[in-house]
């Protein structure tokens, strides 16, 4: 029988008047890659803080690696690793010294062989005596993952690990995350607001919005739930909404800024009707989206995952950019 590496029961976190995480029930099976998908300010990072014992639980219970986070936070912390959205390393230390410090903090008596193996795995062994400030962003990310794995954790939390990275580094990191999961058999809980990242990496996903889980399942299951295509339409002049609703095959019409989003039964059948209802020169841009995690999110929450308007500034992205600017 499969066991759960992470289990929560009505997990809730309230900051003043804001309920950041609202009675969340979560089950993450051992050895899986689980994705928490949601826009900025949805409650993803708060979930990680709760599960790692970094912030107090307001209500409910959380279990990680078999230990109750509230009652046994130190046992939990011995069994988890953490990879941040920003690269957090001691820049003036060498790669080896960063590993030394992690070993000390985890009270590891024998760590040098493991550290060497990890550096070999991540292709950093030759650079172990170099100060981290001389490393590229990709190398720093690799070292950070090596730190997270040094004490052989059972669960690794990755909080938006690819935020602010260029496409090449991001894909390199995806391969590493898959490798860490498969090669080391470690459960990975990943938060992201990159749809394609969750789709590529995660076996199971929960979509979180305003602190609540609004959908859960495998990417395939979630996509199958949306039995519709979406047509994104931008017009030159204002268009009457009733005109759009009257188009055959259009089941729902939403506005998002200057853009219309039409939920349609099948895009290929509806497109000719759209072109006949609107003059071609009225249309500035048209975009068809077949079922994807993006459309799942759109269907459930009525907005795009990267849509501005959550009123929560992305400080981590800002700091990530600041740190990279310093390099």
């Amino acid at each position: 029988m499969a066991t759960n590496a992470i289990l929560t029961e009505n997990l809730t976190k309230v900051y003043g008047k804001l309920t950041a995480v609202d009675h969340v029930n979560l089950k993450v099976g051992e050895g899986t890659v689980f994705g928490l998908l949601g826009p900025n300010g949805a409650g993803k990072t708060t979930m990680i803080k709760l599960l790692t014992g970094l912030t107090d639980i307001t209500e409910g219970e959380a279990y990680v690696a078999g230990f109750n986070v509230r009652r046994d936070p130190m046992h939990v912390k011995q069994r988890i690793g953490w990879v941040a959205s920003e690269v957090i390393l001691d820049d003036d230390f060498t790669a080896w010294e960063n590993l030394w410090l992690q070993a000390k903090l985890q009270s590891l008596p024998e760590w040098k062989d493991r550290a060497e193996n990890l550096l070999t795995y991540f292709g950093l062994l030759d650079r172990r005596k170099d100060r981290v400030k001389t490393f590229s962003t990709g190398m720093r990310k690799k070292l950070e993952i090596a730190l997270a794995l040094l004490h052989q954790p059972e669960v690794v939390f990755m909080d938006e690990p690819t935020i602010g990275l260029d496409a090449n580094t991001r894909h390199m990191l995806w391969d590493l995350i898959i490798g860490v999961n498969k090669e080391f058999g470690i459960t990975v809980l990943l938060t992201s607001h990159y749809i394609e990242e969750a789709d590529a990496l995660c076996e199971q996903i929960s979509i979180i919005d305003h602190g609540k889980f609004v959908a859960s399942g495998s990417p395939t299951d979630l996509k199958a739930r949306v039995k519709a295509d979406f047509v994104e339409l931008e017009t030159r002049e204002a268009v009457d909404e009733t005109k759009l609703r009257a188009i055959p095959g259009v089941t729902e019409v939403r506005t998002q800024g200057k853009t219309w989003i039409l939920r349609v039964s099948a895009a290929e059948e509806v497109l000719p009707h759209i072109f006949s209802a609107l003059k071609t020169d009225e249309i500035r841009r048209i975009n068809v989206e077949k079922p994807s995690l993006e459309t799942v999110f759109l269907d459930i929450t009525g907005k795009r995952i990267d849509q501005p308007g959550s009123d929560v500034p992305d400080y981590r992205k800002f700091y990530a950019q600041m740190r990279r600017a310093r390099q």
Partner: protein
Amino acid sequence: MSTETTYARASRRQLASERPRVSQRSQFVGLYGRELLRTFRNPWVLVITFVQPFMWLAFFGSSFSGASPALVQQIFHTDSYIAFLLPGVLSTSMLTVGMFGSMSTIQDKRFGFMKRILLTPTSKATVYWSKVLGSTSRGLIQIPVMILAALVFGVRFAGDPLMWAGWILGIFFLGLGMSCFFLAMTASSTDWQTPGVISNFITMPLMFASGALLPLANFPAWMQAIASVNPVSFSSLLGRGIVVFGTVDWSYLGYLALFATGMLVAGTAIASRYLKAE
């Protein structure tokens, strides 16, 4: 079979095994070592650590260079104001060591490193102690430099090795107490300005309402009252007795030990409750 695969399988087997017992000593050594390494790898810290004592003695020590030897003897009971000043300057310099420890803590919070530490099984008390001892150690580096500077300025020292050990221990207690105070005050802060504001607020009163720079006998009664409970006074008087006159009043050391212990206990309680990860 690749090395990585072999290692991974071994890792998986070990996952089920028991974890090593959490060692506060190991964690403390790691964090304290980090503080020292960071200090010694910062060239500016080293330069200022070595230059500042010479500047203190040059500027303050010269303030009575125009006075007649008889006047200096009458006021300070020694013919060398620099000798009189040395224990006070060392004591005063320990007032600010906690500020650097606080700033280092705030930097760790700002750049996420505190989160990295607190996501390991490290207690907030251990983090606090490592920061306190780190900043105190940083202050102690100034002692040999200051003594060297005083020798350059022609000071001749009195006292025996036991007395000197007691004096250095007194300075250590003062630095420890002040570091505890600063780090406890800023445990929940992430504002770079906070340590500076606290430092500005307390350094002047503690420095001038003490026997660090001038003899207490010339102070008005209200300043003498402050000086009588001011740890800077006790550290200065302990050192002055040893360095200038070759005599020692161990009660000063006892008071400083009490001050450091009290601050450490109170600070540990505050940090354990209020130290924030970010």
